Every structure is written in C-alpha cells, then in structure tokens.
C-alpha cells in the first residue's frame, strides 16, 4: 500500500524535502549528554535507582488501600493512582518520553524474581501481537467504569497487587520482555502515546552501527571467555537499534545504551509524532500499515479517551437510561457493555471505514478500504493523546496538592502525626487556570492528527492529496469537536447512577 515518495516535481515540494533533510541532519539534542542527568542515566544501575522509590510507593499504596481510610479522597492508593500517577504519566510522555516504563516498579520485582527463577518458555508465536493487550486495555477501561475503581481504595490496591502477580507469573514462565511487549495494557498506552513524545532512544551515528559486528544492543554484551554468559542484557523487546524507528515498544529501559560497546545510543530529540508521518519498516514491529493489531490499539487509544471522559458528564446517564428502557436491561454490565461496544468498536468502524472509502474514491488511492483505514488510523493517536492529556491533566492539576493532606492523614492514622493536622482544604489549581490548558492539549492533538493525515495523503495521492486528506481531516475535526463538547459539559464526576 505504501508508495515510495514521488520525485520532487514542484519547487514547493523540493523546499519541503530540503527543509526536512536539514531538520533530520541537524545535530539533535541528546539527554545523555546533559550534565548530571546524562551521567545519572548512563549509570548501570540508574533504572533500578529509579524503580526502587516507585516500588516503595507501590507497597505503601497497597497497604494504605487495604487498611487505610475507606473514603477514596482520603486514601493514598486512590489519590496517587487516579489523580497523580495518571497525570504525571501523560505529562512526562508529552514533555520527554516513556519515563514510567523506565521506572516501572513491576519490572524491578520481576528482575528480582528472575535472579532465582529462569523462564523456560518462549511466548507462543500466534500470540506475538497486540490483540491481547488491546483487549486488556479496553477491559481496564470497562472495569474501571463498572466497578468504580476510582472510588474504592480496596479495589485499587488489589488492581496493583494483581498487576504484580500477573507480571511475575507471565515473566516467570516466558522469556525476554513478554509481559511488556505482549500483555501490559499500561505499557501499550505508553507506547502509542509516546509516538508523540519529543525524545526517542536512538542511534547517534548510523555509520558506527554499519561497522558493528557484535550487535550487543539486541544480543546483549557477552563475556569474551564465555559467550553464553550475558554481562549486560540487550533489548528484551526485540528492537535492534540500527533498524529501530520511533518509540513503539520502547520501554526506555536503556539496556541498549548500556550494552552498546561504541557508546552510540542516546536519548535524542526528534519531531514529536514525526514517526507517524511515514511508514518505514520498524525493527521488532514491521510496517505500521501491515499491523492491524497496532492499528486497533491506536483506535482504542483514541476512542477510549472519549469513552473514559464520557463517563464523567451528565448526558451519558440520559443515554444509559434510554438504553435500559428500550432494551429492558437491568444489568449495569450489559448497559455499559453496549455503550463501550458502540463507542470503541462500532463508531470507529463506521467512521474510519467511511473515511477510507471516501479517500479511495476521491483521492484515487488504489489500496483497499481496510488497508487505507489501517494506515490512517495512526493519525488519530495524537488527538487521542490530546484527550487523555486534557482529562488526566485536569485531575492532576485540579487535585495537585491533595497528596499533602492525604499523606498527613496517613501518618496521623499510623499514630505519627509528624506532618501536622491534615489540611483538607488544600486541593489544587483553579479550574480557570486548568481549562485553557485542557483546550491547548486538545488543539495540539488536533494539529498533530491533521498534519499526519496530510502527510500520508501527500504520499498516497500525488494527484489529489487534498481529496485524499479531506475525509481524515474532517474526521479529526469531528472528533476534536466531540472532545471540546465533552470538556464543556457540566461534570457529573462519575456518578454511579447508571447502576440504576
């Protein structure tokens, strides 16, 4: 489906290609070259040092969730998970990259376990795709609504515990980074979101790799006397640095940085979302246009953002009541299931299918409609990310300081009121400050989606790029308006009225 870019036929196109070449050839910013931060990240135990505090916080959250206050706004497990963690995660992805996976506490527990338990099995070939994590991602969104996880410290603690258990079981049985690549729903969220990040773990000088014979970045650094002994792990997610493109499947673990004997891997700046504007063959992934599973991930990521925010506004209850009356349904799971299926399966199937058919007809693109839909589905990722940013950023900023009284309360409840009486009136930034940020995030996402669609259309239809672009540009604008409408609705802050 992907066609090689046509030779520059116009001055404008030549200028564009020239500008892009200049941008690509310019010396990128390298985070590893920054004083203090660079040496810290290049330290062999840097990841562990970042993981230990997060593991400690996870343990505190589990204990507090199980034995602490039952009221969600007063419990560290719920406040940290649903206010601070989610917001910090998306903001870190926006400003830098996939930093949560870098400091993932689950992987610290796994690495500890693997000192004694060596996995023996390879993940089945038929499951080496994203279908399971896409399903898990959708399931997480569904069960979050169904069980009102935000309101239950106890359930939140069990979700964290369950996550640890799943990591240990899967990676205790299967080799390499099976959980990260083929299971973890948080990881998939981070992977697709970080396609819009400004930083990427990448090769500094491709010519150095051309002369490399050991391929340590993927094989790991071996002991010279005993090649079976791995001194430094290579990429567990099968990303071969010289052929790696973008942030998909990259956990920022920095194993490749430590393994490269030529010190040729850095954390480099790049054009955010630029990796979605073309369709090269990617190491460990292949071409995006041939990966229906990753396309489905992008779709669930985008429409799931809408669904997750939809649960917070009052019109959803009207729809749910109507569904219950019309279908004579008394089951909350049933009503929610229908709503989820409508928003993250049926709606995207119709909208993307229609846009693909129109692009095929108007732009005279020769590919089939499904192939076009898959190819352009990635263009929706920035808009979806904008919506996640707007939503999670809202909770993060408006509840920024709630961590203070909740921590004060946790110490007081343990019998050590060393931080003083909880100041429950300490909340966060005012909505008047946060709301412009929300719309800024959405606009940023829209701009990214429009730009990617336009670039794909330029590559697909040299004669009629505008016609090829129009359906996807229109779809992006419609989805953007839906996001704006959602954000301007009076919040019902996740009432459980749908239970009836």
């Amino acid at each position, binding site marked *: 489906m992907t066609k090689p870019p046509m030779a520059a036929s116009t001055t404008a196109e030549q200028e564009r290609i020239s500008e892009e070449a200049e941008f690509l050839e310019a010396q990128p910013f390298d985070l590893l070259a920054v004083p203090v931060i660079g040496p810290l990240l290049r330290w062999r135990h840097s990841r562990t040092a970042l993981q230990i505090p997060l593991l400690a916080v*996870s*343990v505190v959250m*589990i*204990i507090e969730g*199980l*034995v602490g*206050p*039952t*009221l*969600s*706004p*007063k*419990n560290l497990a*719920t*406040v940290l998970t*649903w*206010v601070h963690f989610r917001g910090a995660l998306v903001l870190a992805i926006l400003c830098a990259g996939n930093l949560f996976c870098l400091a993932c506490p689950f992987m610290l*527990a796994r690495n500890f376990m693997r000192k004694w338990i060596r996995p023996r099995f390879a993940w089945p070939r038929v499951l080496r795709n994203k279908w399971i994590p896409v399903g898990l991602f959708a399931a997480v969104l569904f069960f979050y609504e169904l069980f*009102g996880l*935000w*309101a239950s410290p*106890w359930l939140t*603690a069990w979700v964290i*515990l369950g996550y*640890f258990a799943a990591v240990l079981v899967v990676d205790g049985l299967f080799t390499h980074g099976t959980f990260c690549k083929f299971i973890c729903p948080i990881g998939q969220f981070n992977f697709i979101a970080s396609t819009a990040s400004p930083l990427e773990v990448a090769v500094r000088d491709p010519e150095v790799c051309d002369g490399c014979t050991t391929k340590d970045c993927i094989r790991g650094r071996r002991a010279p006397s005993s090649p079976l002994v791995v001194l430094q792990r290579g990429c567990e997610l099968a990303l071969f640095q010289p052929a790696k493109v973008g942030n998909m499947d990259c956990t920022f673990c920095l194993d490749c940085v430590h393994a490269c004997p030529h010190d040729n891997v850095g954390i480099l700046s790049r054009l955010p979302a630029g990796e979605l504007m073309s369709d090269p063959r990617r190491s460990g992934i292949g071409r995006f246009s041939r990966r229906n599973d990753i396309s489905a991930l992008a779709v669930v990521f985008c429409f799931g953002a809408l669904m997750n925010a939809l649960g917070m506004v*009052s019109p959803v209850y009207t729809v749910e009541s109507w569904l219950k009356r019309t279908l004579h349904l008394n089951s909350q799971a049933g009503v929610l299931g229908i709503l989820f299926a409508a928003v993250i399966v049926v709606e995207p199937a119709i909208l993307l299918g229609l846009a693909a058919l129109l692009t095929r007809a108007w732009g005279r693109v020769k590919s089939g409609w499904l192939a076009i839909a898959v190819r352009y589905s990635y263009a929706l990722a920035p808009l979806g990310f904008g919506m996640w940013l707007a939503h999670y950023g809202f*909770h*993060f900023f*408006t*509840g920024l300081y*709630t961590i203070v009284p909740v921590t004060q309360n946790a110490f007081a409840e343990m019998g050590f009121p060393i931080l003083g009486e909880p100041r*429950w*009136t300490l*909340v*966060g930034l005012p909505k008047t400050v946060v709301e412009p940020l929300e719309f800024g995030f959405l606009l940023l996402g829209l701009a990214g989606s429009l730009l990617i669609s336009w670039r794909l259309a330029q590559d697909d239809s040299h004669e009629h790029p505008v016609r090829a672009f129009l359906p996807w540009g229109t779809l992006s604008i419609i989805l953007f308006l839906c996001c704006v409408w959602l954000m301007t609705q*009076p*919040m*019902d*802050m*996740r*009432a*459980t*009225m749908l239970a009836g």
Partner: protein
Amino acid sequence: MLASGALAALGCHKPADSARDISIKESIAPQPVRAGIEIISFRLVNAANLPVTGAHVQLEGDMTHPGMAPVFADAIEVSPGSYKATMNFTMGGDWVVLFHIMMSNGRRVEQQMDVKGVASN
C-alpha cells in the same frame, strides 16, 4: 514482601469510624438533590433513643472521586437533638457527607451519609 504485606493487610479492611451508640437520622432537601445549595437536616439520638443535645457538628462533603475540593458546613441545633446545615454541592456526581460530631462531653464521633447521583445543573 508484597505478598506478605498484602496477606497481613487482608481482613483489615476497616469500615469508616462510627459510634454504635450514637445514631443519626438524616434527610436532605430539596429532592432530587442537585448541584448547589441543599439543606441537610438530621437528628442525633443515643442508644436509648434520647436526643443528643448541645453537640457541635461540622459537615464535610467529599466526592467519591479523589482530587476534588471538599465542602464544609457547620450545623446549628434547631431543637433539642435536631440539627440543620446548609451545604453547597459544587458539582454533580456521587458525594459522601461526613458528620464530625463533638458532643457536649468532648467525645468525638464520626458518621457518614452517602448522597449518590447529585444531578448537575
């Protein structure tokens, strides 16, 4: 470490602090409850069903979603054992109202009332 922590915590899932000898019979108006000003009336009685008088009661409204601003209100005793407070529900959704009660003998008691499905305006 995680497993032992979790196992130690199992069975420790404690309910909100409350005093069994003090009960509260509350009502809220107008109905249905909407975002904005609502009047919460309640009667405090002891185990013998006698009114609890002279208590200082502060109400705290929290949303079930973490990270939202709580609202506070002081109750006034309108007749022996009967109290009334004006609470401003700042947005729609599920609320929990905590009654922080300081009785005339200095004893502190906490009770809780769920206010589900406050409609937005």
